[in-house]
């Protein structure tokens, strides 16, 4: 049985999103994880990407302005009248 070729660090960094999204083939996933076990900087790199994604998911929300919301509710009530509801 021939072993798949090992990944290099610069290849690994290009596969991080596919790895995290679970879309790597089984073989590539194995190569990816095998590399990680032996490579501290790549492990740190992966961790930085995970932290980046978490930080992106924690950005503050910017709501629509209150006057815009009120205008929409007004529009909704007008629409409702035309529906005869």
């Amino acid at each position, binding site marked *: 049985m021939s072993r798949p070729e090992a990944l290099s*660090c610069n290849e690994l960094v290009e596969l991080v999103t*596919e790895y995290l999204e679970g879309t790597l083939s089984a073989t590539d996933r194995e190569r990816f994880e095998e590399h990680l076990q032996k490579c501290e900087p790549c492990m740190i*790199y992966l961790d930085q*990407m995970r932290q980046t994604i978490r930080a*992106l*998911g924690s*950005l503050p929300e910017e709501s*629509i302005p209150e006057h815009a919301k009120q205008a929409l509710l007004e529009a909704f009530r007008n629409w*409702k009248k035309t529906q005869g509801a």
Partner: protein
Amino acid sequence: MSHRGEFRGADSGAARDADIGLADRLRAGDERAFIVLLDRYATAMLRLASIYLPRAVAEEVVQDTWLGVLQGIGSFEARSSLKTWIFAILMNRARTHMQREGRSIPFSGLSDPAADPVEPAVDPSRFIVIADDPGWPYHWATPWPKSWGDSPEDRLLSKEVQAEIQCAIDGLPSSQREVITLCDIEGWEPAEVTAVLGITASNQRVLLHRARSKVRRALEQYFGEE
């Protein structure tokens, strides 16, 4: 209150039923159903529209979209989710606005990332080209990436870091910005993102990868490690 990622990992059948319930209530003129939808999606709509249009125009497009939702809800047949249906209306309105103003249209659905110049996730100079150890070609050159600390969560949630991230996102090409906004900021499922943006799953991942890699790079620089 955040509704982000609300349906993440949820059974899509349950999400579909919830959609149909909301659509029915909206059709029946239930104002609370309208408010639920506004609270759930208006922020993401504004964020998305702001990628293509100045803030004031983006707000107008969002307003206009909701009017379109009310006009069209009678014919919504739940063939798509209510969410992707609403966002499809938003994208149409945004396109119309841009055409009217004679702007070029930078939507990712019209671009092919494979045809873009290659954008390595990491500057190639960070890797050794000829390794002493043939078992490790293209290994990291020193300095290696450094850990961002044991308790990086607090640091990553600070206002300064958030401003840094926002700045990095603002600097992305709009096709990458669309994808990272919906996937990572709003926490959408990949299938929802591809449906609304009209891109393939593989293009979505390429764009997401490029965008995330750049934000990571900006953070690494900010933390003073390059």
